[in-house]
C-alpha cells in the first residue's frame, strides 16, 4: 500500500497532522521519472523547528534548481506519530512525494545542535535502514550530514557515510554531479565515496583510522585510500552571486520563525571567545544592500509573508545598515511588510531610522553581556561595557520601553562567585537607572529578565581546552545568583544543566561516542533537546555500558598539545591563534575585532570579505566598494 493511503488512517490520531501532510505553497513537486537523483533533506527535529531553519530552505532550493535532482523535506515525527507509524508499519517518508526514504539516493541531515543526534538514529531506523554505515549495503542510500555540528562530526562517524564541512551551496551540486557520473559509469557507493572525499569540503569517516592512547586521548588519525588530511571546509566566496531562494515553503501551521528571512552577511567580526559561530563561519562576507533588498522583496512577494527578518550573527555590524534599511523601508511600508531586526544594537544608527524601525515593529530590548563583571567580560572578549548597556537602556526607557532582557552565561573560564553575583548587581543597576529617570514612562514599572545559560566549551574556539563546570557547581552558582536577586522587578530563567552537560560531551566528543549514542537510542532516548524528553539516567547507563564517562569529555581540561578529534578538520582558524587567544583570556586581555585590526586568525587564507577590506580608507580592496564603519566602537 502507498504511504499516502496508509497515512489517512493515522493522521486523525496524532497531534498537529499538518506536520505530516506536505502540500504547502512553494513546496517542489517533480516528476519522479525525470529525477535521476532523489535527495531526502532531513531535519532531526519537529516540523515547526526544522521549517524555521534558513540553511534548509537555501539547500532545498539550491538542489531543486538542478535539472534531474529532486530534493524533498523530512522532519522527525513527534513521538505519537512515531508510535502510530510503527503500528501501521509506515516507513519514514518525504513530505513532497510521500515516498519512503529507502527509495532515495541521498538521505541528508543537518546537524544544528548536538542533542539531535539520537533523532538522526531514530530517523534512519524509521526509514528501515541499518544505523551503522558499515552495515548498510551498496544499494542503500548515501547518508550525508552537514551543519555547524559537522565541524566535529566524530561522534556520528559510525552512522554517516559522508560529512559536508562548511557552506554547502556550491559543494552539494558538485557532489550531485559526481554521483551522476558514478551512476553513468556504474561505479558503486564505495567508489563514489572514495571520489567524494577528494572534493574539498567532504569528509568520509570510513577512510580514516583513529588510534587512542591508554588514557583515552587520541594517539593518531591516519587517512587511507588517498583521502586528504586535513579536510578543508568550504565557503561561499561571493554572497552576491550565490543563489538565494526566491521562495520559501509556506507552512500551514505555526512554526517557530514564520516569516521571510534575508541573510545579509555570514561570519562575525567580534571574536567572543566562547562563541563557535564567531569562528567557524569566518571570514565575514557581506551581501550588497541592493542584492539583499531585491532578494527580500522577491521573497515577500512569492510567499505572502508580511514580516521580514534580517539574518546574521550581529545585524549592527553590517557596514551599510542605513542604506539597506532605507532600501527595504521604501517598499516594505507601502506593501505592509514589517521589518524585524534581531541582534541589533540600537546605539549604532541614526535616530531617524531608529524611529522608522521602531514604528514598524517594536521588538523587545535585549542585550547579551554574557558575564556580570567587566573582568569576566574581558576574559571572554565581550567588549560591551556597563556604560554601553546603561546608555542604551536610558535611551530606550526615555523612548517608552519598560522591559529589558539580558543574556548571561555561568560556568565561564576563570569565573568567581563575585562574577556570578555581578549578574544580579547589573540587573539591579538597570532597575535603579529606570527609577532615576525623570522621563521614564509614567505609572509603569520596569521588568528586567535575566536568562542564564551554562557555558559549553566548543571546538574551534579559544575555550576549546577548558573544562565545563560540573552540574553540582552550576547548581551552586544558580542558587548564589538567585539569592543575590532581591527584587521582583528582576526575573531569572535558567537553561537546564543536564542539557548543557550532554552538549559539552558531544561537542568535543570522539568516535567512541557512537556506541553510546546508539545505546542511548536503543534505551529510548529521542528528542533530547526537549526538556520533557531528556532522560539523563538512560544516557548515564549508556555511558556505563560502554565503559566511557561523561566527565572525560565534559569536565576534563585539555593540554594544548593534546590531539583533538577535530584537528583533522581545517576551518582556517589556526591552532596557534586559538592558543594565543586562550592565553590572553587567562591574562584578562581583549582582542580588537576584525574591522579594528586583524588578529591573524588564519581566515585571511580565503582572501575574502573582511580580511581584504582596507581598514584605513573603508574601501574594500576586492570589489572597491564603500564600507561604512559603525560608530561607537
Amino acid at each position: 500500500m502507498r504511504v499516502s493511503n496508509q497515512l489517512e488512517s493515522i493522521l486523525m490520531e496524532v497531534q498537529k497532522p499538518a506536520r505530516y501532510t506536505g502540500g504547502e505553497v512553494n513546496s517542489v513537486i517533480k516528476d519522479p521519472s525525470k529525477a535521476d537523483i532523489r535527495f531526502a533533506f532531513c531535519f532531526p527535529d519537529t516540523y515547526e523547528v526544522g521549517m524555521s531553519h534558513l540553511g534548509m530552505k537555501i539547500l532545498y532550493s539550491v538542489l531543486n534548481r538542478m535539472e534531474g535532482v529532486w530534493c524533498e523535506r523530512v522532519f522527525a515525527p513527534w513521538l505519537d506519530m512515531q508510535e502510530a507509524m510503527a503500528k501501521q508499519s509506515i516507513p519514514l517518508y518525504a513530505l513532497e512525494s510521500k515516498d519512503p526514504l529507502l527509495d532515495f539516493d541521498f538521505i541528508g541531515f543537518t546537524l544544528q545542535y548536538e542533542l539531535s543526534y539520537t533523532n538522526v538514529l531514530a530517523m534512519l531506523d524509521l526509514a528501515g535502514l541499518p544505523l551503522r554505515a558499515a552495515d548498510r549495503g551498496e544499494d542503500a542510500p548515501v547518508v550525508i550530514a552537514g551543519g555547524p555540528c559537522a565541524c566535529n562530526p566524530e561522534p556520528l562517524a559510525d552512522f554517516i557515510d559522508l560529512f559536508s564541512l562548511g557552506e554547502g551551496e556550491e559543494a552539494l551540486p558538485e557532489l550531485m554531479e559526481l554521483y551522476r557520473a558514478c551512476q553513468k559509469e556504474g561505479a558503486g557507493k564505495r567508489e563514489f565515496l572514495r571520489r567524494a572525499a577528494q572534493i574539498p569540503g567532504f569528509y568520509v569517516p570510513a577512510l580514516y583510522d583513529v588510534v587512542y592512547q591508554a588514557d583515552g586521548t587520541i594517539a593518531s588519525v591516519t587517512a587511507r585510500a588517498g583521502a586528504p588530511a586535513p579536510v578543508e571546509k568550504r565557503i561561499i566566496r561571493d554572497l552576491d552571486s550565490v543563489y538565494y531562494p526566491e521562495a520559501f515553503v509556506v507552512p500551514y501551521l505555526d512554526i517557530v520563525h514564520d516569516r521571510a528571512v534575508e541573510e545579509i552577511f555570514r561570519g562575525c567580526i567580534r571574536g567572543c571567545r566562547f562563541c563557535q559561530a564567531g569562528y567557524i563561519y569566518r571570514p565575514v562576507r557581506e551581501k550588497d544592500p541592493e542584492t539583499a533588498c531585491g532578494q527580500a522583496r522577491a521573497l515577500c512577494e512569492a510567499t505572502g509573508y508580511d514580516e521580514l527578518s534580517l539574518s546574521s550573527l550581529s545585524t549592527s555590524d553590517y557596514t551599510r545598515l542605513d542604506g539597506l534599511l532605507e532600501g527595504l523601508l521604501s517598499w516594505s511600508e507601502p506593501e505592509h511588510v514589517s521589518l524585524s531586526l534581531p541582534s541589533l544594537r540600537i546605539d549604532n544608527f541614526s535616530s531617524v531610522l531608529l524611529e522608522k524601525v521602531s514604528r514598524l515593529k517594536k521588538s523587545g530590548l535585549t542585550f547579551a553581556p554574557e558575564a556580570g563583571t567587566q573582568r569576566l567580560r574581558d576574559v571572554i572578549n565581550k567588549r560591551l561595557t556597563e556604560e554601553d548597556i546603561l546608555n542604551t537602556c536610558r535611551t530606550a526607557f526615555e523612548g517608552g520601553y519598560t522591559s529589558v532582557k539580558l543574556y548571561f552565561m555561568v560556568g565561564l573560564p576563570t569565573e568567581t562567585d563575585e562574577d556570578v553575583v555581578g549578574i544580579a548587581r547589573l540587573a539591579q543597576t538597570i532597575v535603579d537607572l529606570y527609577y532615576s529617570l525623570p522621563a521614564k514612562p509614567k505609572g509603569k514599572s520596569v521588568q528586567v529578565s535575566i536568562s542564564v545559560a551554562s557555558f559549553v566549551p566548543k571546538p574551534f574556539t579559544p575555550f576549546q581546552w577548558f573544562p565545563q563546570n560540573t552540574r553540582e557547581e552550576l547548581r551552586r552558582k544558580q542558587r548564589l545568583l538567585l539569592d543575590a536577586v532581591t527584587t521582583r522587578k528582576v526575573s531569572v530563567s535558567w537553561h537546564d544543566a543536564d542539557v548543557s552537560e550532554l552538549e559539552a560531551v558531544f561537542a568535543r566528543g570522539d568516535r567512541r561516542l557512537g556506541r553510546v549514542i546508539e545505546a542511548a537510542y536503543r534505551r529510548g532516548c529521542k528528542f533530547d533537546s526537549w526538556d520533557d524528553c531528556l532522560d539523563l539516567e538512560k544516557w548515564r547507563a549508556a555511558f556505563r555500558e560502554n565503559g566511557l564517562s561523561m566527565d572525560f569529555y565534559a569536565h576534563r581540561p585539555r593540554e594544548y598539545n593534546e590531539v583533538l578529534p577535530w584537528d583533522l578538520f581545517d576551518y582556517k582558524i589556526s591552532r596557534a591563534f586559538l592558543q594565543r587567544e586562550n592565553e590572553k583570556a587567562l591574562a584578562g586581555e581583549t582582542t580588537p575585532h576584525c574591522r579594528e585590526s586583524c588578529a591573524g586568525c588564519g581566515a585571511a587564507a580565503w582572501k575574502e570579505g573582511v580580511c581584504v577590506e582596507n581598514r584605513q580608507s573603508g574601501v574594500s580592496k576586492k570589489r572597491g566598494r564603500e564600507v561604512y564603519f559603525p560608530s561607537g566602537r
Partner: protein
Amino acid sequence: MLRALQRSGLPVWRTQGFHPHIYCTFAHPLSLGYTSSYEVMELRVTDDGLQSSEMLARLQKVCNQDIFPTAAGDAVMKINSLAFAGYELLICGGANALERIQAFFDQPSIPLERVSKKTGRVSRFDLKEKMREALAVAQGEDARIRLILPAGPKETVNPGLAAGALLRFLGREELRVQVHRFGLYDQEMNLFL
C-alpha cells in the same frame, strides 16, 4: 489564506492600530480532519470598483490546488446569520449495519454530552432535538449518512459527536468515519451566500 491575500496584492482592508493586519473571516471554520465542498471567506476591499471576477482571478493565480478559490461575489448574508451545516458521514465498512444506523437516528431521543473547550464543563443535550435530517444509504461496503446539524454563532453541534454515539450504539467503534461538509445554511435553510 492571509499569505495568499498578501501575495495577490489585492486592495484588502486592514485593521487599524499598531500591528495592522488583513481583515478576513471564515464562515464556520472546518474542524481538523474533515473535508468540505467549499468554504466561505469574508473580506473587505478598499476599492469599490474592483470586479468580483478580477478579484477571483488574482486570488486563483496565487493559490495552489489544495486551497483554491472557486467563486467570488458581494456578501449577501451576514456571517452571524449562519445556522446550519450539512454533512455526509461515510462509515467505512458500515453498509451491512444500515438498518441499525437508521434505528439509531429513529430513536425518540439521543442523549449526548459535550465538553466546552473554554471552560471544560460538560453539558447534556438531545441530538434528536438539534438535528434536522438524517438519511442513511449504502454505498458499496460503506454507509453514507446525510445529516443537518446546527452550525453558527448561536449553537454548533460537532458531527464527530453524532458519529461517536452512532458507533457506540452499533458496538462498532473500530469503524473509520469520514466527515464531509457539503453546505452551509441560514435559519430558513437557505444556502449561505
